[in-house]
């Protein structure tokens, strides 16, 4: 036990000596939360839009107006021809062009059902899809207004019976991305510190030669690993709290649930990522490699966690893989605690999964981490 204390003391000395390091460790969460929280929205809005109005009538102007007032689109002005519009799309100045045909107003009044063309930049498929949905919403709303105004149509309108979806968004009524991003960042931050730094700090000792020296001392395997891991757990814990504070102070987003539940779950999660870091250190011979391996796993872990892309979006095979991803469980847990205030009792499945996973990786990689050279 005493030996572990000395190891821990040494780790802290080394961490504290590196000024940049401390700055990074504690500055990083603040910056991340500020930048990502403000910058990243998975919502699509301000889609740059131009209108080609061949008709130049009262009706077409009204249509243009409807598109230029909404938040969803950013009206970049009128263009003269379809050709110009395609050019603007080529240049990337706009993402969508609406082309109102000749005689639009006349056809509309005669009930000939004119067709408006929407030329869309499909490169970003997701945004394009969302933009088209906005377009439809706005045009339908506009058409309803028209139908009510023009008397001839109102008789027909009375026979129309529609269903409408009335969604009630629980726990995050306005669907703000921040509510998703912030807990997600906290989770990835824990992962970053534990997986990356563990791997790198072990490999570093190997590169410098001090690991060999430690190996000939009577330190036991588990003492060596605990001595490495415990300080990082403390660092990760401090960082988590910095993150929680930053999220609360900057975005006013405080967790609804119990902070100790979060602490406990974070510990279970950290166990598995620490295991990952130790594993990386047993495979890697240089810090570069360790970093790369850890980085690699991180990308996979984040993508397959449901953070940005719901798990249900993935093909069944990949969904199966996500069960091996500890972040998948932790994202759920942290969201639940932050937004829904869920109690420990309802999170036991995720907790158990992380615990088992964490213990397994931790034990396996510790076994792999032999106190012998190969």
């Amino acid at each position, binding site marked *: 036990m005493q030996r572990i204390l000395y190891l821990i003391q040494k780790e802290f000395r080394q961490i504290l000596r590196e000024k940049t390091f401390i700055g990074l460790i504690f500055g990083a969460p603040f910056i991340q939360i500020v930048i990502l929280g403000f910058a990243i929205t998975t919502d699509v809005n301000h889609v740059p839009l131009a209108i080609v109005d061949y008709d130049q009538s009262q009706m077409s102007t009204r249509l243009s107006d409807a598109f230029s007032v909404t938040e969803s689109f950013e009206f970049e002005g009128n263009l003269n021809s379809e050709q110009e519009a395609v050019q603007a799309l080529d240049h990337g100045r706009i993402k969508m062009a609406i082309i109102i045909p000749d005689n639009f107003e006349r056809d509309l009044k005669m009930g000939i059902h004119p067709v408006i063309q929407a030329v869309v930049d499909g490169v970003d498929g997701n945004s394009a899809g969302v933009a088209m949905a906005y377009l439809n919403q706005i045009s339908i709303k506009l058409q309803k207004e028209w139908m009510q105004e023009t008397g001839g149509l109102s008789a027909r309108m009375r*026979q129309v019976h529609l269903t409408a979806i009335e969604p009630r968004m629980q726990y995050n009524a306005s669907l703000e991305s921040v509510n998703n991003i912030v807990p997600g960042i906290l989770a990835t931050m824990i992962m970053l510190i534990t997986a990356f730094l563990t791997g790198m700090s072990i490999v570093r000792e190997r590169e410098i030669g001090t690991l060999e020296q430690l190996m000939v001392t009577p330190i036991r395997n588990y003492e060596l690993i605990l001595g490495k891991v415990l300080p990082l757990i403390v660092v990760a814990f401090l960082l988590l709290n910095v993150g929680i504070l930053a999220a609360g102070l900057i975005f006013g987003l405080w967790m609804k649930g119990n902070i100790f539940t979060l602490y406990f779950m974070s510990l279970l999660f950290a166990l598995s990522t620490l295991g990952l870091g130790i594993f990386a250190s047993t495979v890697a011979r240089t810090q570069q490699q360790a970093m790369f391996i850890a980085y690699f796993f991180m990308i996979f872990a984040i993508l397959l966690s449901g953070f940005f892309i719901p798990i249900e979006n993935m093909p069944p095979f990949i969904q199966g893989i996500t069960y091996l991803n500890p972040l998948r469980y932790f994202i759920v847990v942290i969201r639940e605690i932050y937004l829904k205030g869920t109690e420990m009792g309802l999170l036991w499945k995720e907790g158990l999964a992380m615990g088992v996973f964490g213990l397994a990786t931790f034990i396996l990689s510790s076994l792999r981490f032999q106190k012998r050279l190969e």
Partner: protein
Amino acid sequence: MNRILFSITKKEFWHIIRDYQTLIIIILMPILMLLLFGYAVTLEMRQIETILVDQSHTPQSRAFLDDITSTTFFKITDRDVPEKEFEHILQQRKARCIIVIPADFARSLETQPETNIQVLVDASDPNAANYIRNYLIQISARFNFKLNPQLKMPFSVEPRILYNPDLKSYFFFVPGLVAVIILLITSLLTSIAIVREKEVGTMEQILVSPVHPLQIVIGKMIPYTVIGLIDSILILIMGRFLFGVPVLGSPWLLLLSLIIYVLSGLSFGLLVSTITESQQVAMLTAMMITLLPTLMLSGFIFPLKSMPLIFQYLSNVVPATHFLTIIRGILLKGSSLMDILPEMGALTGITILLLAISIRKFNMTLE
């Protein structure tokens, strides 16, 4: 250039090739990332766990529910649970959403112009909540159309989708991956490789040798540049044959922009290596000043236009922002040099500036 540089470069190449583990990782990683982005990132959510509550029990309500169950979007886990349990169900995550057909559905549908269907959505995952809402709006629109065959709107909107008619996600991600991977290799790996020499002590050796230090640094960077280029070409080839992502524009223009972009990444790497002393710090710094902005502020995943203005301005400083416009333009739109001139100009400008700063800084740290 000269013999010295050539021999240094050769030495570095041997280093990398001998270190086959790293080599495997840097060749394999882009491939796996491509497969992952290509196959895992789909824009359709399926099998959403759903509870249907039919308080109406009429042919009309069943017709509506049939429209829901006939899609693959929803997986019905339970039906007709009492209203007081709704809250509890969502809290326990037994379902993502609860769709409630009101008791007066059939009657209202006949007499009222609009009948509401209430949907309770667990929005703790806002992305999923968005999908759910959009699907239900689609289903309700189709139902409305069947219900009111006479209904014809005054005009219709016909979409024409350019460049990526099927809205495939990999058309978006493949060019983006090229940008991220090049940056990863050029800035992150090189900075670590240089700092490593400092840490191990071989940098001192280099400083006393008659070779100009910059030559050694350049010699160190060339192999990583080549690997970065190979990786990008690999991604492009796989993107072409696996996912059908075309290269419509000129390959030479593509190569030119790749090279300029690679240079910007290298300058970053050099800069990071001059301001850090240990590999750990180098790695964290490189992540903070290159990788994160590239992932988040370049339009790689998140549309720039949706961000607050200040971040849109900030994004102009990130080389990847311009590079992404360029490479997406060349690949998917067949852009010519004239089309992408402003972006090319910006990218070149940033690169020259970065290169100048980092070389100056590097020379200063030597003294």
